[in-house]
């Protein structure tokens, strides 16, 4: 049962990558990228989870009662917000590419080569 917790992040990672590799639209591709990203969050939170433990917030239950790992949560929560702005940066790039090239299909957007 325990290793089943890793199946979900692995699945999200693989399906997201599949989407990136086969994508024919850059905005769709960036959407797939967010799926890959979410897989890392699920992984980190699964790693810190403990059966039967509460949230690491001792406002309504006393200090000393079992709680899940606060460190992974701290790592993930900032990264989610920051990841969103990085995604926004990618979208901005895609938009500029579209302005110049009139297409967002990766297959038709090859950099010029010698």
């Amino acid at each position, binding site marked *: 049962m325990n290793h089943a917790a*890793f199946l979900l992040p692995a699945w999200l990672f693989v399906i997201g990558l599949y989407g990136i590799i086969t994508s024919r639209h850059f905005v769709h591709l960036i959407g797939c990228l967010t799926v890959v990203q979410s897989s890392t969050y699920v992984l980190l939170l699964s790693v810190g989870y403990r059966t039967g433990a509460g949230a690491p917030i001792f406002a309504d239950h006393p200090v000393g009662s079992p709680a899940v790992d606060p460190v992974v949560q701290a790592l993930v929560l900032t990264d989610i917000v920051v990841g969103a702005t990085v995604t926004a*940066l990618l979208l*901005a790039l895609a938009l500029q590419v579209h302005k110049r090239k009139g297409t967002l299909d990766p297959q038709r957007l090859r950099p010029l080569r010698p």
Partner: protein
Amino acid sequence: MGASGIRTLSRSLCDILNAVGTSERHGTNIVTLVNFDYRGFDTLGEEYILFAAVIGAVLLMRTHRGEKTSARPGKVSEQPVPLRTDAVALGSRPALGLTLIFGMYVVLHAQLTPGGGFQGGAIIGSATLLLYLGFGYRTWRQVMPTAVLDPVEAFGAGAFVVAGLAAMAAGAPFLTNLLPLGKTGSVISAGEIPLINIAVAIAVSTGFAVLFVEYLEETREPDAGDEE
């Protein structure tokens, strides 16, 4: 062994923090304590990632776009692209106030209950969208001129570093807390955490607002100079 099925060699760091965090830092949300105190330096870095991403997006869009855009929405096959309807406008106005208050609550109670500058900042930033939906593009741009947003965002980012440097000026290591810890459970407690949270919230919310402004500018007609 954790439920995740990994054979864990030690759980010491997480156990120590859960055990002593509250008595040591006078806050009940250990996640916030980790974010803004024990591992505050990481959060500083993350804040700058956000800062850099926003500067980058602005640099990209502002320089690629002509100098000025009009308030008129862009057209697709002679129809202006509708991004808002009357019903949406009506619903958005009350929602705006509620969302703003909720966002501020989330920011200010970070050390007590779930929340913090990042989440609250994102909520407040998104609330500016409601401003656009409720009052229209023109009002929105008047309330939030870019010339103000940029410095405010820089202030939010810089304030965190300055808090760290202040500790050094007092002879302590970078980012050491200098303020009294206060009473556990009150809004003003856990030392500098509320202040840093507000700084982060300012940086995050203006960051999102700047992104929204720049993106929506992309959907405007270029200013031809024939109207207005």
